[in-house]
C-alpha cells in the first residue's frame, strides 16, 4: 500500500519548513513503498505517512513510537540497507532507500517476544544474575536464548568499505553548536580576526530558532550570510564527538561530498561549547507508549516538516516551550487539553492499547481522551564535551538542571548550557564568548609561533591572557519535575524503569555508578543524554537524598556515536621495497611481508635455490639489512659501547661481527660493521632491528656521551645490498668489478670499495651468513637494479640464480647461525647463545656489561645448541617442546628447524636447559601430533662445514 505525501498528517506549508515540496522522494518502510519530500527525515516522512509504531523495546518488546523525533530518539533506530542503527529522526530520506524496523520478530506488528512484557515484573533489573545457574550445563543454552534478544540492527558482513577520509586542522576557534549562541560566538570570533570553524549537528543552522517566529528565522538568515562573509567554515550535519587532551577536537563530518564520513581532527586553540539543551522525558506510567512525545518533537514535526503529530492532544507544560507547543498545535487545528505543572497540575498515566495512547489520567483523577500526549517538563544540559575537558557539572535545584562546574581556560561555554534569557541576551553572551575566544586564541597562537623553530617569527611579548569578564546569562526558575507518582520508563533504549531503579537501590546498588552498572540505565545508544538526570533523580528519591548529593556519572566520549569507518578513515599501512622489487615481481617471486618490507620468499623452489647456491652461485637481495653510516674520530668508542666485543683496533678494510645487548644483558641485535676509512664505518643490523639500533646508538651519543664526535646516518635504502654466494661467486663478481678479489689481498671478513658493473664507489665485503664463499655488495640504490641484472647476465654460464629468504634461512640453519628474536627471545642473555668469547668483560664499559658479568656465572640459563633428530626424515615443527623422557617436564624447545637439501636430513637449533646441553646428550622432542622422537645435541653449531672451509676458500 502506498501512501501519498498529501496524507492527512501532512499539513499545509509552514513558514519555517525545511522540506522541498516540489521534489518527491520514494523510499520503502518495512517493505511498503512510500513517498516523502526532499529534506524530510525518515521520521518526518514516516509520520507524514501515518506510521506511528517504529520499533520494539529491547527487553519487553513493547511497541514504540517517536519520542523526540531527532538524533537522540531512543525509539527511532532503523536499518537502512546495510546500515544498522540509523537515527531515523536525523537521517534524510533518499530515493530508493530501504528502511526496515529493527529488533522485531517475526514482525513489527506481531512480536512474539512481547510476551516478555507479561512476565515483566519478574524480569527486574539484573534478573539474569539471579537465575540460570542450575543446572550449570544448561547455561550455554540460556545464553544462546539471551543473545537472540540483542537489540540493534544487522551487520551485513559484505558491506563494502566506502570512502572515508580524515583531515587535520588547526583553527583558532572551534564552535560546537550552530544555535543563536554558537552562531554569534563564531561570528564575533571571526570578526575579531580568528580563524573559526562552526560545527552544527543538524542539517541547518539555527537550533531552536528554526521552529520559532519569523523574526527568529530572520536572525538565522542574518547570521548564515554574515558567517559566510566573515570566512567562517560552517560544517553542517557534523558533530563534535570528543574533546581530548590539549584541545584535540574530533569532528565527524557527515556532509562531505565525496567521503561518506570524514573525521576532522582539530587542534583548536579555543573550543566554544554551545550545544543548547536536550529536552528531558517525564517518568510516569505508560510514558513509552506510541503517541507520547516531547514538546521539541512536536514543534519540529509541525514547523520544519509540516507534519501533524496527532489530532487530539494533552500537553503537560512547565515552561514557555510547552506553551509554544500548545500554540503550534492549536494553530494547525489540534484540539489541546492543557495540564499546567506550574499550577500544580499533573498527569499520572497514559492509557490505551499497546500501540497507542487513548487517554491520559490526570493527577486529579480526571481522564482525558487524546491520541497525543506531549510533555514539556524541562531540560538536560549536554555537558559531555565539558566533562571530557575535566568539568563535573553541578545541579541547580531552582533551574532544575545541571550547569558547568568549573572554568576551563581553553574551553568556553555559551547558550543554553550556561543559562537562559531572551534571544538578544543569548546572542550577546555568544558575542562576548566569541571575542574572548579570539583573544585567548591569539595568545595561544603567539606562544606556539614563538616556540616553534619553523614558524613565522613573532615579535613582542605574548599577549596577556584575557580574563573572563562575560556577563552571566540569567537562569530561569523551573519546577523540578522528574517522576510522577507512578512508575514509568527511565531508560527507553535499555527498558529500565523507575521501579527497577528503586529495587536496585534497595539491594545496595545505591551509588550512581553501581546502579548504572547493575541496571544498565544510561548505557544505551543515547549514552544518557535523555536518561542520566532522570536516573539520578529517581535514585535520589529512592535514597531520600537530593540530586546534588547523588551527583552524576561521567559522560565519556564520543558525544554521539561514530562509525568505525569514519574513525579508521583512509587506512595508511606503509610498505617498503628495495630497488630490485620490480625485477622480483616480473620474475614471479613469491612475496613475504617482513615487518614493513615486501621481500621474495622464494622464486618457486627454495631447496633448488639452496642447491644451486651451494654448487654454483646464487644472489639474494638483502637490502632490508639495517645500514648505518658512522663518521667521526670517536666511532670506535661508540662501537665498543654498543657491542659486547672489542672495536678499538679494527683495521681499515676489515669487517667484524658483533653482538649487542640491552642493559639487562638480553640479546638485542647482531651484525657486522666495516671500517671503510680512517673515520668512516658502515654498520649493519638485522632488518627488524634497523630503526631500534639507530635510536639506541643515538641514545648513547646524545644522553651518555655527548662529547663523542660521531655522525650517524641511516643508509639502509640508499644502498641496495646483494649477497653473491657460492663456490663460483668470486668468478662472477670478478667479471664485473675492478676490486682485486684475489683471496690473498681480499680475505674473509674484509671490505673493499670499487666499481661494480660500472657503478662507482660500491662497497663489497666478504662475509657469509650462508656459509659459502660470498661477497656482499652494497650499491647505490639508483643503480641497484642495474647491478642485479648485470650479475645475472654476466653469470649465465656459471649457473647464477637468485635465491630468496627461505633458501637463506635454510642455509644459515645448516651453518648453525642463530637469528636474534627467533633462536633467542625476550629473556635470552648473551651467554646463552654460546658466544661467550665475544663478551669482553675487561672492556671499561659497554651496554649490559654489569648484567653480563653476572650472567656469565649463571649456571641455570638455557643454552642455544644444534640438534639433530635420530630419524633425519622428521622435521620437528619450530616451537616443539623438548621434555624429560617419560614426563611432561619441559627442558627446552626447538627454535629453528628445516629439512636440509644439502645434508638430506633435518637440522635444528634449540634452546635447552644447561644440564642437557652437552654434545651427544639425548633429547626427547614432542612432535605436533603428540608423539615423541629422539634427538641429539650436536658438537658444533654448524651442521654443515663446521670448519668453515667453504667460507674462507
Amino acid at each position, binding site marked *: 500500500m502506498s501512501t501519498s505525501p498529501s496524507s492527512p498528517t501532512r499539513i499545509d506549508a509552514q513558514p519555517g519548513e525545511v522540506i522541498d515540496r516540489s521534489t518527491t522522494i520514494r523510499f520503502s518502510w518495512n517493505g511498503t513503498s512510500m513517498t516523502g519530500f526532499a529534506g524530510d527525515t525518515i521520521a518526518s516522512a514516516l509520520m507524514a505517512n501515518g506510521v506511528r509504531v517504529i520499533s520494539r523495546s529491547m527487553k519487553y518488546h513493547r511497541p514504540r513510537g517517536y519520542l523526540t523525533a531527532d538524533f537522540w530518539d531512543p525509539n527511532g533506530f532503523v536499518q537502512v540497507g546495510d546500515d544498522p542503527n540509523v537515527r531515523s529522526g536525523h537521517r534524510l530520506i533518499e530515493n530508493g532507500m530501504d528502511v526496515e524496523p529493527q529488533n522485531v520478530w517475526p514482525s513489527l506488528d506481531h512480536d512474539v517476544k512481547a510476551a516478555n512484557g507479561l512476565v515483566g515484573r519478574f524480569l527486574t533489573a539484573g534478573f539474569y544474575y539471579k537465575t540460570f545457574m542450575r543446572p550449570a550445563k544448561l547455561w550455554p543454552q540460556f545464553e544462546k536464548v539471551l543473545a537472540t534478544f540483542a537489540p540493534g540492527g544487522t551487520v551485513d558482513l559484505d558491506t563494502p568499505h566506502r570512502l572515508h577520509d580524515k583531515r587535520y586542522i588547526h583553527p583558532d576557534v572551534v564552535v560546537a553548536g550552530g544555535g543563536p549562541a554558537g552562531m554569534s560566538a563564531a561570528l564575533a570570533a571571526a570578526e575579531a580576526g580568528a580563524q573559526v570553524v562552526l560545527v552544527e549537528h543538524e542539517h541547518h543552522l539555527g537550533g531552536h530558532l528554526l521552529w520559532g517566529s519569523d523574526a527568529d528565522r530572520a536572525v538565522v538568515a542574518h547570521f548564515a550570510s554574515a558567517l559566510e562573509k566573515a570566512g567562517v567554515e560552517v560544517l553542517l550535519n557534523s558533530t563534535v564527538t570528543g574533546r581530548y587532551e590539549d584541545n584535540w577536537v574530533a569532528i565527524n563530518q557527515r556532509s562531505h561530498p565525496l567521503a561518506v564520513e570524514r573525521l576532522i581532527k582539530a587542534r583548536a586553540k579555543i573550543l566554544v561549547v554551545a550545544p543548547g539543551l536536550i529536552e528531558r522525558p517525564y517518568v510516569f506510567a505508560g510514558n513509552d507508549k506510541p503517541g507520547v512525545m516531547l514538546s521539541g518533537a512536536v514543534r519540529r514535526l509541525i514547523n520544519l516538516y509540516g507534519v501533524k503529530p496527532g489530532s487530539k492532544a494533552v500537553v503537560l507544560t512547565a515552561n514557555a516551550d510547552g506553551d509554544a507547543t500548545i500554540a503550534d498545535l492549536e494553530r494547525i487545528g489540534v484540539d489541546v487539553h492543557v495540564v499546567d505543572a506550574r499550577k500544580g497540575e499533573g498527569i499520572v498515566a497514559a492509557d490505551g492499547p499497546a500501540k497507542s495512547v487513548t487517554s491520559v489520567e490526570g493527577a486529579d483523577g480526571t481522564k482525558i481522551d487524546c491520541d497525543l500526549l506531549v510533555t514539556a517538563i524541562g531540560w538536560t544540559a549536554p555537558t559531555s564535551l565539558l566533562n571530557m575537558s575535566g568539568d563535573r557539572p553541578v545541579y541547580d535545584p531552582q533551574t532544575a538542571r545541571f550547569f558547568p562546574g568549573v572554568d576551563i581556560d581553553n574551553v568556553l561555554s555559551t547558550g543554553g548550557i550556561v543559562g537562559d534569557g531572551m534571544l538578544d541576551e543569548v546572542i550577546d553572551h555568544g558575542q562576548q564568548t566569541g571575542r574572548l575566544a579570539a583573544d585567548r586564541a591569539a595568545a595561544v597562537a603567539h606562544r606556539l609561533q614563538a616556540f616553534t623553530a619553523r614558524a613565522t617569527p613573532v615579535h613582542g611579548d605574548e599577549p596577556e591572557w584575557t580574563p573572563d569578564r562575560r556577563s552571566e546569562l540569567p537562569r530561569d526558575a523551573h519546577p523540578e519535575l522528574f517522576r510522577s507518582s507512578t512508575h514509568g520508563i527511565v531508560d527507553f533504549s535499555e527498558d529500565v524503569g523507575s521501579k527497577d531503579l528503586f529495587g536496585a537501590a534497595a539491594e545496595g546498588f545505591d*551509588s550512581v555508578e553501581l546502579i548504572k552498572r547493575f541496571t544498565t540505565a544510561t548505557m544505551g545508544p543515547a549514552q544518557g543524554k535523555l536518561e542520566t538526570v532522570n536516573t539520578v533523580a529517581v535514585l535520589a528519591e529512592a535514597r531520600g537524598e537530593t540530586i546534588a548529593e547523588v551527583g552524576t556519572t561521567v559522560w565519556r566520549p564520543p558525544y554521539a556515536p561514530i562509525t568505525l569507518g569514519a574513525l579508521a578513515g583512509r587506512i595508511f599501512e606503509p610498505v617498503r621495497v628495495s630497488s630490485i622489487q620490480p625485477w622480483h615481481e616480473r620474475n614471479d617471486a613469491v612475496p613475504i611481508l617482513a615487518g614493513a618490507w615486501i621481500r621474495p620468499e622464494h622464486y618457486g623452489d627454495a631447496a633448488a635455490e639452496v642447491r644451486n647456491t651451494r654448487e654454483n652461485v646464487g644472489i639474494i637481495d638483502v637490502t632490508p639489512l639495517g645500514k648505518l653510516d658512522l663518521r667521526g674520530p670517536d666511532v670506535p668508542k661508540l662501537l665498543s659501547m654498543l657491542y659486547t666485543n672489542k672495536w678499538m683496533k679494527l683495521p681499515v678494510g676489515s669487517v667484524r661481527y658483533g653482538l649487542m645487548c640491552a642493559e639487562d644483558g638480553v640479546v638485542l641485535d647482531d651484525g657486522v660493521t666495516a671500517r671503510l676509512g680512517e673515520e668512516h664505518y658502515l654498520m649493519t643490523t638485522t632488518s627488524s632491528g634497523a630503526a631500534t639500533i639507530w635510536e639506541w646508538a643515538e641514545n648513547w651519543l646524545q644522553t651518555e656521551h655527548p662529547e663523542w664526535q660521531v655522525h650517524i646516518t641511516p643508509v639502509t635504502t640508499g644502498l641496495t645490498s646483494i649477497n653473491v654466494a657460492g663456490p663460483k661467486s668470486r668468478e662472477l663478481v670478478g667479471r664485473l668489478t675492478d676490486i682485486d678479489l684475489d683471496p690473498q689481498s681480499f680475505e674473509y671478513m674484509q671490505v673493499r670499495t670499487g666499481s661494480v658493473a660500472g657503478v662507482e664507489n660500491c662497497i663489497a665485503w666478504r662475509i657469509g651468513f650462508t656459509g659459502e664463499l660470498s661477497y656482499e655488495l652494497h650499491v647505490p640504490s639508483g643503480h641497484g637494479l642495474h647491478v642485479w641484472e648485470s650479475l645475472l647476465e654476466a653469470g649465465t654460464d656459471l649457473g647464477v640464480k637468485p635465491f630468496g629468504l627461505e633458501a637463506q634461512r635454510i642455509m644459515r640453519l645448516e651453518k648453525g647461525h642463530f637469528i636474534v628474536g627467533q633462536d633467542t627471545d625476550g629473556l635470552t642473555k648473551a651467554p646463552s647463545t654460546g658466544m661467550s668469547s665475544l663478551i669482553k668483560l675487561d672492556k671499561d664499559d659497554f651496554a649490559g656489561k654489569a648484567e653480563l658479568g653476572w650472567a656469565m656465572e649463571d649456571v641455570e640459563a638455557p643454552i642455544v645448541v644444534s640438534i639433530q633428530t635420530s630419524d633425519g626424515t622428521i622435521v620437528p615443527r619450530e616451537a616443539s617442546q623438548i621434555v624429560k623422557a617419560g614426563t611432561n617436564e619441559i627442558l627446552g624447545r626447538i627454535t629453528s628447524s628445516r629439512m636440509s637439501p644439502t645434508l638430506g636430513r633435518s637440522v635444528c637449533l634449540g634452546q635447552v636447559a644447561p644440564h642437557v646441553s652437552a654434545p651427544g646428550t639425548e633429547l626427547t622432542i614432542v612432535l605436533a601430533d603428540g608423539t615423541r622422537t629422539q634427538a641429539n645435541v650436536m658438537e658444533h653449531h654448524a651442521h654443515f662445514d663446521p670448519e668453515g672451509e667453504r667460507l674462507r676458500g
Partner: protein
Amino acid sequence: MAKSAGLTAAREKVGRRSADSSKPPRYSAAGLLSRGARKTTWPRVWRDVPLQKTYDVVIIGGGVHGLATAYYLATNHGITNVAVVDKSYLGSGGSGRNTAIVRSNYLTPEGVAFYDRSLDLYNSMSLDLNINVMFSERGHMTLAHTDSALRTMNWRAEVNKLQDINSSVIGPEDVKKLAPSLDTSSDPRYPILGALYHPPGGTIRHDAVVWGYARGADHRGVEMHQKTEVLDILVEGGDGPDGKGPGGKVTGVRTSRGDISAPIVVNCTAGWATLISDMAGVKLPISTRPLQAAVTEPVKVFLPTVVVSGSLHVYVSQTDRGELVFGASVDPFNTYQVRGSLDFTEELAGHVLELMPGISRMRLLRQWAGLCDMTPDYSPVMGFTPVEGFLCDVGWGTYGFKAGPVSGEQMAECVATQQTPKLIEPFRLERFSTGKLVGEKGAAAVGH
C-alpha cells in the same frame, strides 16, 4: 621475607564477627517468581556497617582481587574479621573497566598452571557464589599474521598441551569457520596465517564477579567499606624515615574515615599500587599506564568467539547484548590520567576493519580507560614484602581480571599460612633483585 605473627591471634578469633545466623536468601528463578508475585524486593547485596577500630586483616582495594582474597580468607581459612576498604565504590577500578576475557593459554608452565586454576574457579563460580556471572565459554582465538607470530602461537600451544590445556594452532579455514566475519583471504596487509585456538577461554560478566565475591564475603562476616580512602600505612621499626620500609612491621592503616589497627594489610590495588606501597616504604617495579577500551552499539550477534590480534594490538568480543567490546595495548607513556584518547579509537577502528572489513557501519558508542600497573616482565608481584604484615597482590598489568579468583585464593592462603603458596612462588618481589624474571616476557605481545 617478613611474615606476621598476628595471624595466630586472628585464627583464634575465627567467627567472632560472623554475619547474622539467618542466612540471606538464595538467588534462584523460584525466588524471582515469588518476589515478583509478592512484589517484594531483594535484601542488600552487602551490609552497610560502621567502620571498626581494629581488624585482623585490612585489604586495600575493593576490586576482584581484594574481594576474592577476603572471600577465600573467610571461606577457606575461617578468617572473617576482615575489612575491605576502597576509596570509591566496589569494582570501580580495573575490575569494572576490563574487557572481561578469561583464558589460560599462557606461555610458561607457571603461567599456565596459575591461570588454569583461575579458569577452574570461574567455571564453578556461578554455583559457588550463587550469582550468575554469565561465564560464556565461547573460545578464544589469537590470530597470527606473521611467521614469527605463528611460531609463538605454536610455542604456546605446545606448552599448553603438555599441561593438558585445550589449545592448538588452527589454519585460516578453521579460523573462518569459527568467525566468518574475519577476512582470511591472502590480500590484507596483515593476512591471517593461523591462530592459537583455546576453546575453554571466553568472557564473563565482570561486575557480577565483583558483586558475587562481595556478597559471598559479606555473608561470612567480612565488611566492605566503600568511599574509605587509605591515606597512610602505619609501620614501625623499619629502616626508612618514620620507621617505615624494610625491617618494619605493619600496625594498621590511616583512612579518610579514621585509623584502623591491623597486623596484616594487603595491597590489592591496581593503578595506585606503587602509591600504596610507598606508604609502607616498599618500592615496587611498577609503572602505571592507562589501558583503553571501547564498545560499539549493539547489533545482532555475529561474532561467536573472542578474537585477538597481537600484531594489530586489538582484541574483540561480542556481548550477548550484541555490542562489540574492544581493547588494545596500554598507552605509550606513564600517567594516572584516564581520559580516553581519539588516537586509540582511530587505530583500533583501522585495525578492526583490516580484520573485519564488513563492519565499517557499526558505531562506536563509548570509550573508557583504566589504569594498569606494568612490571618489567608482564607478571605480577605477589606475597610478602620486606615489611612484616604488609603483603602485595599487584602489578597485574592487563591480566588482572583473568587472575582474580586464583589470586584471591592464593593470597588468602599466603595470609593464613604465612607461607608463599607454590602457585605464586614465581611472582615474588625478590625476582627483581635477583634478576630472574618470569618467562612470559619471552614472547611479550598483547595477549588478551
